[in-house]
Structures are given as C-alpha cells and as structure tokens.
C-alpha cells in the first residue's frame, strides 16, 4: 500500500503541469483560466481574508456537526431501544434524505435571516442523517450471541449497550463522521452562498461578482483542503480510539503463539 502513495502524487503533478502548459499556450482564453501559479499568488495575497472567512465557516460547521452528531446518536439509541420508534422514524429519515440540502437552504435563510443560525441548522441537518443511520445499523448488528452471553451474566440493558452495542457501532460511527465532516463544510458553504456576512461561501459570491477567477480557484482548493484535513483528523481519532481495529501484526502474531503454545 505505502509504496503506491507516489502514484496519485505523480498524477497530481502531471495534472498541474498540463494545466500550467495549457495556460502558457492559451488553450483556453487567459481571463477564464488562471495558471496554478496565479492561484497560489491569489491565495497568498488574500490569505488573511481567507483565514477570517474560513474561521467563520469552520465554526458553523463545528457547531452544526457537534449538534448533528449528538442528535444522531440519541436518535439512533432511541431507534435501537424501541422498535416502535424505529418503525415510525426510520422510513421518514430515509425519505427526508431525498430533499437536497441546497433546496432547504433558501428557506432557512428566509426563516432565520443572514446570521450564522441558518448555516448551523443546515449543517445539523446534513450531519444528522449519516450519524443516525450508521449508528443505528451498528447497534442493531451487534452479535446476538454476544448479547445472550451478557444476559447470562445478568448484565443490564445499559451494560449491554455500553459493552457490546456501542463498541460494535464505533466503526460505523467513524465512517458516518467522516461523511458528516465533509458534508458539514460543504453545507455551510452552500448556505453562505445564499446570503450572509462572513464565511468562505460569502467570499466565493463576492469574487464571482468581480470575475476574479484566480481567487475563485484559491477558495475552491481551500474548501477541499479543509475537508481533507478534517477527514484525516477523524481517521487519526479512529486509530487512537480503536487500537484493536489496527492490529496489523495479528496474523504473524497468531502464527508465533500457535507454535509456542502446547
């Protein structure tokens, strides 16, 4: 795996090179497509401004994400514990997912005006679903024999949840969280497009109006970089909190112990 890391890097390098050449030889009119170098220059010159806006967007995303994850968790636990709640809620959850967030964003702006509130609410909505569904499926997938074993030891409902169901859902939790993190940044940006005072989405609409393509590209790359970094952080958190999931030497270890045992 590790050895093949250079391949995507090479692809990116080639892509940048072709882009730069395309600009050099004017394959596309110069005013429409800036060169990579110009994008970097735009990024550097607008850096303080970009960081201010990024701070606002990330704050919205974090608050929304935290609330969405918490709500999703509570909802999943309820659906897991009470079959009736699950029967009533689950189809509705799936149904509401067919509504694109972009479609509710204008409504939220109308209801909650141009501050941070509508952005946060949109992020809550987009983060909630992957968490609620992922966690519930993780809880439900807990091994029935494992639960039987716990019951034979007179474990309480709460103990079964804590020792068996929750750990069983941790993998799903992190997959859901990675999606939710990416969605939350995008969700915040989309909501900002539609009106607001600060944030990367607001910055985007402004540079669009002034046809500043270089700045446009700079902010697009910034948004994707933020998402990537956050998803990487989630992965690190997962490795830290689920060490049993990353026992790379397991097979080798098994072979060793099998030989010395008996």
């Amino acid at each position, binding site marked *: 795996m590790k050895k093949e890391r250079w391949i995507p890097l090479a692809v990116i390098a080639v892509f940048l090179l072709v882009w730069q050449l395309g600009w050099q030889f004017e394959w596309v009119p110069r005013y429409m497509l800036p060169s990579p170098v110009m994008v970097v220059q735009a990024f550097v010159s607008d850096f303080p401004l970009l960081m201010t806006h990024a701070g606002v967007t990330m704050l919205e995303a974090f608050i929304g994400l935290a609330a969405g994850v918490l709500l999703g968790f509570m909802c999943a636990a309820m659906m897991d514990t009470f079959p009736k709640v699950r029967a009533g809620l689950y189809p509705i959850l799936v149904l509401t997912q067919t509504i694109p967030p972009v479609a509710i964003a204008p409504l939220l702006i109308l209801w909650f005006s141009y501050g941070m509130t509508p952005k946060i609410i949109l992020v809550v909505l987009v983060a909630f679903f992957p968490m609620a569904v992922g966690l519930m499926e993780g809880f439900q997938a807990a091994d029935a024999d494992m639960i039987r074993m*716990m019951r034979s030891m007179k474990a309480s409902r709460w103990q079964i949840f804590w020792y068996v169901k929750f750990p069983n859902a941790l993998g799903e939790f992190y997959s859901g969280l990675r999606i939710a993190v990416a969605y939350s940044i995008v969700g915040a940006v989309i909501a900002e497009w539609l009106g607001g005072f600060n944030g990367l989405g607001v910055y985007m609409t402004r540079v669009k109006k002034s046809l500043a393509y270089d700045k446009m590209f700079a902010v697009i790359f910034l948004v994707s970089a933020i998402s990537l970094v956050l998803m990487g952080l989630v992965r690190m958190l997962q490795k830290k909190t689920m060490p049993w999931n990353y026992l790379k030497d*397991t097979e080798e270890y098994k072979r060793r112990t099998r030989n010395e*045992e*008996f």
Partner: protein
Amino acid sequence: MRELLKAEHIAKSYSDKQVLKDISVTLNEGEIVSLLGVSGVGKTTLFNVLSGLVMPDSGTVTLEGEDITGKAGYLSYMLQKDLLLPHKKVIDNVALPLLLSGVRKKEARERASSLFEQFGLSGTEYKYPAQLSGGMRQRAAFLRTYLCGKEVVLLDEPFGALDTITRSSMHEWYLKIMDEIRLSTILITHDIDEAVLLSDRIYIMRGSPALITDEIVITENKPRSPEFVLSEEFLRYKKQIKELLR
C-alpha cells in the same frame, strides 16, 4: 452426593417445530456430566433453558431446590463461541463478570490476573483477543466463565472449534484444572471420545423432538490421565455408546 441442578420434564418448541420433549437431567456436586448428541438435536436449546435465557414451554429448572426456571444469572454459562469482546484487552474480558456486578476495575483486574497463570494465559493480559490463538481464546472464555463464580457451570462445546491437536492438549489441560478447581459442570459435546474421557456421567440425547435416551456412568477414577483413552476400558465405553447411538 448433594444434588445441585435439576431439570424436570423440559419441553420447548420454536414456532411449529418441537425441539425438546420431556427432558430431565440432574447434576450433583463435583460432577462432570456430558450431554452427547448430534448437532442440531437441541443441546444448546437445553442449555439456554437451564441458564434461564429461554423460557421452556413446560417443565422446571431448580438449583438446590430453588425454582430458577426462566431466570438468568444463576449459572456460569460458556456459550458455543468464545465471544470475547474484541475491543477489550484479555484481562478486562476475563474480568467482565466482576465488572458487570459492580466490582471496581482495579480490583477486578487484580482478581482476574491472579488466575492467569493457572489458566495458561500468562503474558496475554494486555493483548487483544484477536492476538490470541484459538486455544488461548477458549481458555480466556473459560476463565471468564469461572469468574462468574456460580456453583454450576455449563460449557457448550468448549473444545468444538479447535483443531485435533490443540483439542487433545486442551483435554489434558482441562483434566488437570478440573482436578484443582472441581467445578460441578455440564458439558455439551458431539465427540464420543471427549465425553468418555472427561465425564463422570453421560446423557445421550437423541431424536426430534429430542429425548434423553440413555445415561452412562463412567467409573474410571479421577484424576484421569490422558492415557485413559488408550485403555481397554475406554474402548468398551466407546463401543457401548456407539451401540446406543445406532
């Protein structure tokens, strides 16, 4: 001999299929009793009833005269799979029954770790179950069951998932440890050799719905050596059981 566990006239059906029909078994103090039958006959179902996880359609289970039918938590029950929690280190897996009953983590770990050597688990305390071999996982599950601390132990095919060589070393180990801790045990198996080697008595379970068709007493003295399997005596028991199963 003190009678510990007694199940009388147990019957159990699932949907339209009757699995158990009028099953009665007893377990006396210090005894190891095997429940021998082909797979699918209903051995695990009987254990689920004895342990109180499943309510029988009729019949009663008593422990020292007290009715425990349908009540979980009175017996130490080791299920068919090792069922170690993958996210807990071996020591916390083993100490699970203590932790569940409210013993502090530090004390639970201390009590568990004092038994690791006797159970052949030294050095595995802070590993994860996935890092252990099958035999070790089985012994860890056994130690966890032992730490449930109940007077009666149910073992559902404890050696069933192991390869032959590991299994016979586990038999040796089991005979030795049972000589030390003398647990009153009912053990499920579908292996005749295993039943004869390990038990004082064997119930043979047959049919659909299942009945206890025979009971065989193995008079060989305890502690038994693994050489027992090579004796004439052993062969005689084996022949007798094979006849009965025909």
